[in-house]
């Protein structure tokens, strides 16, 4: 009987000690924030356009972590969906057309002589990419514009255009060579060499 009590006491002590260690570890090595949200956020294009229905990319990342569909991001398009599908180990699904279609990247351009200096676009810009002050002409900092489109609608004089980004010799790159289709080739020269 005494052995039994001894065993119970030893086990109880062990449980307390390990419990204390685990409890300490849980507090000491606590991970701040939700790392999966950060990982998802890293894959999103950070356009902050709100087309997904969330006020920015991070809120959408949080929503995805909570089970929202991964195909609500038109600026990211297929590439982002693929990357998200890889990360979350779910199937890649086509872009939800309800939230918009994948379009070429554009940037906002303010026709400066028409700008009345109302500052409405500045307030709408999610990334502070518009420079200006009340009753002063505004302008877009091209390098920092994400092309989210949010400044176009509030403009009372419609002086903001979304223009596609110019391809420069620096940004230009080669396209993938046309995929080979064996049957499309001219048969003569290669056919002859095959016989040789």
């Amino acid at each position, binding site marked *: 009987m005494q052995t039994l009590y001894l065993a119970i006491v030893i086990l109880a002590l062990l449980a307390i000690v390990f419990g204390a260690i685990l409890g300490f570890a849980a507090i000491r090595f606590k991970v701040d924030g939700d790392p999966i949200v950060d990982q998802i*956020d890293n894959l*999103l*294009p*950070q*356009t*902050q356009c709100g087309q997904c229905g969330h006020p*920015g*990319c*991070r809120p959408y990342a949080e929503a995805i972590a909570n089970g929202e569909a991964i195909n609500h991001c038109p600026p990211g398009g297929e590439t982002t969906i693929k990357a998200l599908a890889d990360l979350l180990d779910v199937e890649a699904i086509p872009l939800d057309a309800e939230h918009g279609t994948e379009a070429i990247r554009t940037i906002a351009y303010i026709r400066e002589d028409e700008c009345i200096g109302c500052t409405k676009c500045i307030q709408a810009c*999610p*990334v*502070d*990419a518009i420079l200006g002050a009340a009753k002063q002409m505004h302008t877009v900092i091209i*390098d*920092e514009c*994400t092309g989210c489109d949010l400044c176009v609608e509030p403009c009372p004089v419609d002086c903001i255009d979304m223009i596609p980004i110019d*391809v*420069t*010799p620096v*940004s*230009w*790159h*080669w*396209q*993938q*060579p046309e*995929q*080979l289709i*064996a049957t*499309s*080739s*001219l048969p003569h020269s*290669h056919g002859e060499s095959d016989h040789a």
Partner: protein
Amino acid sequence: MHKIWDFHGGVHPLENKIQSNQLPIVVMPTPKQLALPLSQHIGKAAKAIVEPGDYVLKGQLIASAQGFVSANIHAPSSGYVSALVERTLPHQSALSGPCIVIDTDGKDQWVELNPTTNPESLSKQELLNLVHSAGITGMGGASFPSAVKLQLKSDIHTLIINAAECEPYITADDRLMREYADQIIAGILLLQQLLGHPKCLIGIEDNKPEAIAALNLALSHNLGQHTNIEVCVIPTKYPSGGEKQLIEILTGHQVPHGGIPTNIGIVCQNVGTAKAIFDAIIKGQPLIKRITTVTGKAAANAGNYEVLIGTQVEDLLAFAKVDLTRTSRLVMGGPMMGFTIQDTQTPLVKGTNCILAAADLELAPVPDHHACIRCGQCEVACPADLLPQQLFWFAKAEEFEKAQDHNLSDCIECGACAWVCPSQIPLVQYYRYAKGRVKSINSEARLAELARHRFETREQRLVDEKTAKEEKRKIRAIAAAAVQAAKRAANPTAEDPIAAALARVNQKKQEQQTAAAPQSPEEVYKALKTAAAITRTKLKKTTTALANAKAQDHEQAASLQQTVDQLTVKAEAAQAELKAYEAKLGLDPEKEKMLQVAVAKTNAAVRKLEKALATAEDPQALEEDITDAKAAHQIATQALANHQAKPASAQES
């Protein structure tokens, strides 16, 4: 004899150099027009400092370097700047970019030059400044600004002069060495001075015996002085002229992955650059001309030409008698690494070493490629020791991360793998595509990071602003309460100001009501009349609505009926009240009306008679009638006045 090593891989394509290296360099006359792209070097484009219409002298600075990695551009001949326009650039993309166009005047008048007579006295920095201001870029093709390459601050033990010129067809450096060996050696001496006198190895392929002899002769002219310059003859193999490959051949060391030659104490310069540095420092001439090979079977006068930077390809082709009708492909650069150009107005730039006008079938037509058979020949040929086949699969499947893990960035795009490929797969194009995509993905990621940072900062700022506002409001509220409390404490008997104000308002209202109370009977009568009229109108309206509702069988008919009943009662009550008041005042509206009618009638009769009198034949009789009528009118008026005067008397009595 310096020991030489070998690099992995490499190929031996047909050299085809004999076509263009037999004749001396011909100086091409100044063309009518020159177009100078602002960006003809790696790095930031230069900024134009001339305006259309300006007259410029030969060698005058027309565009200045912007930022650290950039190069000056000088006018290659004298003339007027005719325009600053977009022209097709000598670039794979065939995109256009800003160019300064100069219409030459044929005088070829130099700007005042500052040649140096004793370069030994110049400091490193002074030499560097001269190289920078002369706008010298690497002449081998990559066009990296030389001053930037030379001012890297690490110890250099070896200067390598790249004279390999390994690419087929090109002989520009070959001819340059044969004819300007002395100047090249002088340029190398300046480079050595600039870099702190490292030893110099000139790497040259053994297919250029005349050039080797010329260099050795130039060295022997000043024997003893140049003991640390050595001409190293290396076997002909493509691409031994690649910077990293040449370094490995001459030193046995490899440039580390992602590094540059200076990391291992080596600087590599092209022979053409050495000559340009000689021109810049000793002669004081900026980089405005270069030697360009024109070759290919379509060129009748294939050879090397000294051309001004900015010469348009068509002018050079015309001078070299190139038959454009026979040209199947026009390539800028060599057949391995060059690119096809479509626009013959494309200008020649500092890095253009060759124009290849290939006749039909001279260059293999772009073949239809077959499936990869995994023969592994590309791996054998790769001079960068990569796995071209793996890279091909990754590029094709767009698995760029894996491609990078397989050192895609170390690919020098020499084309050896594609050259050996039995399936004729355009491997280099796949790598170029993958590299381009990697670059754009990286730049997008950088932009996304910036956008995220700015977004988060902005969100934080908005939250901060809101809390600050709230804080301020709270502080103000507390301060106001404190002031109130202080006031009350100072004067405890004073009542609450709000309660006092309310009391004042109430008092005023009451005063108004009492003041309005004593009304004259006329006013009361009027008020009653109005009330009666209002209720009557309301009743009428509701009755109409009820009729409509009933006609349409509307569900509200019942409630309307109720309203009508209520209003009928109200209207009757109002009428009764009015009647009662009339009775009290002794008024009789009907009689008054009758009297008024009588007055109006008599008045009308008088008017009528007076009108008739104006045209009457017997005025006497009419006048009597008028008098009667006037009397009747008088009586009626009197009766009405009496009647109206009654209420007052009734009230008095």
